[in-house]
């Protein structure tokens, strides 16, 4: 138990902390443990990990720096934060690659024990930056030898020096617990649970964690503690989810609520792999997962399962979506339900696998040969990925069509508190199979209802045996047809069917006044940044409103009218202007201004506010 501290405690609304160190320093763990403590303290929060594509780049180098950022507060938090208020840097390389992001006057907690000559050289420092007077002038620098203090805490433990070195992240965590007035007992329980199989490491880490906490309390370099009061969140039970976990949970929910098998055929690819990993744990809930031999087989198996009556999905990222294009066309022409989840990353080609981007809007909308429209929606936050997965599957099944769900690396890896819905709060949907002939005693697989939806008869149903395939089919029987007019009819019918999905697309809601000087239009993962910017601009008295698009195809019915109600439109995107281009084409006369960042990161709220102020003059 910690004794009450004598240091003064300052109340703050929100704080952004970034933990950075070498890939092997355990920064992801430190960050996520601190996040859990913030969640338990009732803060709203958002997190984002930032790590290199290489699993272990050479230790101590600039390329090997791994980071984890968390923004927590007593008000609504929509992003992991623009600029850290606090930077915890475990070695020189981490300091070098992250210092520029630290807010001027922010707090720098640095492990000076790692600032050896060798590490300084690896980080390409000519001299020790900690000796630089300007550092102390610009930031509140708290320089601590965590290496030595960790060693001292574990003196006589019998652990090897390598094992001891690996405990130092818990020293940093202990300091942060003290600094932000977090109770330590729960974390000690966590450590014991985490290292249950190696009790000697559990004891060592717990000891180091307590030592870090005690150091914060007793050393005189920290002059005060902070407390971030609980946020006003909707009452309920909460957990943290990343976007990738949320997609998996969403699909598992579909299986449970519909009573139908959900089949995932997939192939590992950063940053989408976690969805497959998570779903593999839901075998007992009606989910079947299949790790195929490649991206094409991933979607191929899903279409095969869909033909068999499963609620099928496949998960991927940009390069995989490119490989799946031909298959998506097949699902589209056979009109079989399927959800393709694309966790976007930096492209083209291999691009930046661990960095986020929104540059797959075009491929989602247009990236197939032939006339091949399909419904496209995008999730806006990690927890929204849960509801988006359910919605995407519902639409796919109802309309007998493949649906693309776009998320991105920022959402997929980022986390936020997720209110667990009450029993019955999330509704299932009907899954109907054709069981009887539909046309004078015969089965016509392409005989449509008034919404142009075709029936779904599955193997095992006697009397309804039929064949589907990628060749153009007769508009009724589905048999191969090379008749030009039939083809034209089928192309138009398929397009009209997808256009009809608009009946399930809610009108966009304008956040703010219905008319004004400027409308911010966002889609997908930029929601948080744009929402935060809009809120701040409104409090500054600017006539700025915000519209967020969940549906990219079909577009909401009222969108054109909404766009035309503002003097100017600004579309912020993490790409080179794909939504802006799409809006120009979809609504002649509408010519949005663009704000594009393509640096692998979410848009910074402050930069966007700057851009809006520049436009408004």
């Amino acid at each position, binding site marked *: 138990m910690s004794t009450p501290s004598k240091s003064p405690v300052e109340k703050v609304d929100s704080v952004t902390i970034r933990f950075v160190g070498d890939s092997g320093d355990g920064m992801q763990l430190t960050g996520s443990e601190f996040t859990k403590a913030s969640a*338990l303290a009732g803060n709203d929060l958002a997190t984002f990990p930032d790590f290199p594509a290489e699993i272990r780049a050479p230790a101590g180098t600039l390329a090997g720096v791994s980071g984890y950022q968390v923004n927590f507060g007593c008000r609504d938090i929509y992003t992991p934060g623009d600029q850290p208020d606090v930077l915890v840097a475990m070695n020189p390389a981490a300091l070098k690659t992250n210092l520029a992001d630290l807010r001027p006057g922010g707090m720098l907690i640095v492990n000076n024990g790692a600032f050896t000559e060798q590490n300084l050289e690896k980080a390409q420092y000519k001299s020790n930056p900690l000796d630089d007077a300007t550092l102390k002038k610009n930031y509140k620098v708290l320089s601590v030898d965590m290496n030595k203090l960790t060693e001292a805490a574990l003196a006589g433990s019998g652990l090897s020096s390598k094992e001891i070195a690996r405990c130092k992240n818990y020293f940093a965590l202990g300091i942060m617990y003290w600094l932000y007035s977090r109770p330590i007992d729960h974390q000690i329980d966590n450590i014991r649970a985490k290292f249950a199989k190696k009790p000697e490491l559990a004891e060592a880490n717990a000891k180091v964690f307590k030592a870090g906490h005690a150091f914060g309390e007793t050393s005189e370099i920290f002059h005060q503690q902070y407390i971030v009061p609980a946020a006003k969140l909707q009452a309920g*039970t909460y957990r*943290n989810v990343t976007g990738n976990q949320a997609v998996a949970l969403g699909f598992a929910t579909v299986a449970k609520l519909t009573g139908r098998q959900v089949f995932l055929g997939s192939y590992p690819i950063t940053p989408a792999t976690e969805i497959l990993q998570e779903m593999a744990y839901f075998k007992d809930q009606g989910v*079947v997962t*299949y790790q195929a031999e490649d991206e*094409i087989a991933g979607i191929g198996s899903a279409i*095969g399962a869909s033909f068999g009556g499963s609620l099928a999905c496949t998960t991927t990222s940009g390069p995989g979506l490119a490989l799946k294009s031909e298959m998506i066309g097949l699902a589209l022409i056979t009109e079989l339900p399927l959800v393709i989840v694309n966790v976007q990353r930096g492209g083209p080609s291999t691009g930046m696998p661990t960095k986020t981007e929104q540059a797959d809007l075009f491929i989602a909308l247009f990236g197939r040969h032939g006339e091949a429209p399909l419904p496209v929606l995008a999730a806006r936050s990690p927890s929204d990925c849960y509801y988006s997965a359910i919605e995407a599957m519902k639409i796919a099944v109802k309309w007998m069509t493949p649906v693309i769900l776009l998320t991105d690396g920022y959402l997929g890896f980022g986390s936020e508190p997720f209110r667990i819905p009450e029993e019955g709060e999330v509704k299932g949907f009907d899954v109907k199979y054709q069981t009887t002939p539909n046309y004078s005693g015969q089965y016509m697989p392409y005989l449509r209802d008034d919404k142009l939806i075709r029936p779904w008869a599955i*193997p*095992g149903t006697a009397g309804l045996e039929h*064949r589907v395939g990628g060749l153009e089919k007769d508009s009724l029987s589905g048999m191969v047809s090379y008749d030009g007019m039939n083809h034209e009819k089928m192309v138009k019918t398929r397009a009209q069917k997808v256009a009809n999905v608009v009946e399930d697309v809610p009108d966009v809601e304008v956040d703010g006044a219905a008319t004004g000087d400027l409308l911010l239009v966002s889609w997908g993962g930029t929601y948080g940044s744009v929402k935060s910017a809009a809120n701040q601009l409104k409090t500054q008295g600017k006539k700025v409103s915000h519209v967020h698009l969940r549906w990219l195809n079909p577009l909401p019915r009222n969108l054109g009218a909404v766009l035309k109600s503002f003097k100017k439109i600004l579309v912020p995107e993490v790409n080179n202007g794909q939504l802006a281009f799409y809006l120009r084409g979809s609504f002649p006369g509408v010519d949005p201004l663009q704000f594009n960042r393509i640096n692998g990161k979410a848009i910074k709220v402050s930069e966007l506010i700057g851009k809006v102020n520049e436009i408004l003059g």
Partner: protein
Amino acid sequence: MSPTTTAPIPTYTKKDFESGVDPRWCPGCGDFSIINQVQKALPAVGVARENIVFVSGIGCSSRFPYYMNNYGMHTLHGRAPSFASGLKISRPELQVWVVTGDGDALAIGGNHFIHTMRRNLDIKMLMFNNRIYGLTKGQVSPTSELGKKTKTTPHGSPDYPFNAPALALGSGATFVARSIDIEGAHMGVVLKAAAEHKGSVFVEIFQNCPVFNDGAYLFLTEKAVKADAQLRMEAGKPLLFGKDNRKGIRFNTQTAELEVVTVGSNGVAEKDVLVHDPHRADPTIAFMLANLSDRAGFPTPIGIFRDVRKPTADEMTWEMIKAAKAKRGETSVRKFLSDAETWQVK
């Protein structure tokens, strides 16, 4: 989810498996004979028509599902095994067949082919091997002979061909066989065994393309050469061939190779000839037999190389699902969403 019929299976005739669509293959195509044998074999298989699915890729052979009165999918070039895999894993009670050709299975679909075999998924693949690209009108295929002149290899092919059964064996297939389009009775026996096998089935069917590669198998099927050119493999019987059945295949323990011997000469007795056993767990002998067709002076083996029962990927998947269900038991959405560190907000 399964609406699969469990009612008694009707007595079928060949006609019950004909879709009524006239096949659009060239006159004299070997595919006619193959579909005829498949339709003849299915009534005896004991599976309801609606529980059988034919999946194909692209190529002449891949039109097959349209002519069968079962559920069918005509998919993408080379990709049929991936559809079949998803279908079989999600609906293990269905009988799933893949119909493919040498280009479809071994060129563009090579990756899916080897992985389907190594998983031992309960999928029955029939590969019609005409050693040419037919639908695109005569280009070299992965089974075309070295030196073959085609439209894309006017100076002869510089590529060694695949030996398809050897590839299937190397990939872990548990049932590997070969037959010939015009040998109807032989094909019928092989198809029946294929239908009854539980696990990955690969049947190569030598098929003549009368338009782009006519006579590709005359070296094997002409009356005058047939007896010496074909090695009929039958379980439990010595591997004998030749006009008077005096030639045999012997395993030479000195060289660890197969060799051709003549029973009754040089002191060779019938007991020295290798007895065919497709049920050997070790695929080595089957692999040696498969490779004979590439060796000068050896006959081409016809029949079942390997027929071994091993747990299939679909069986194991569903065993795991059963075990996982028994462990966690029924739960609710809220319960599994709460299976993490949670906290209350009031």
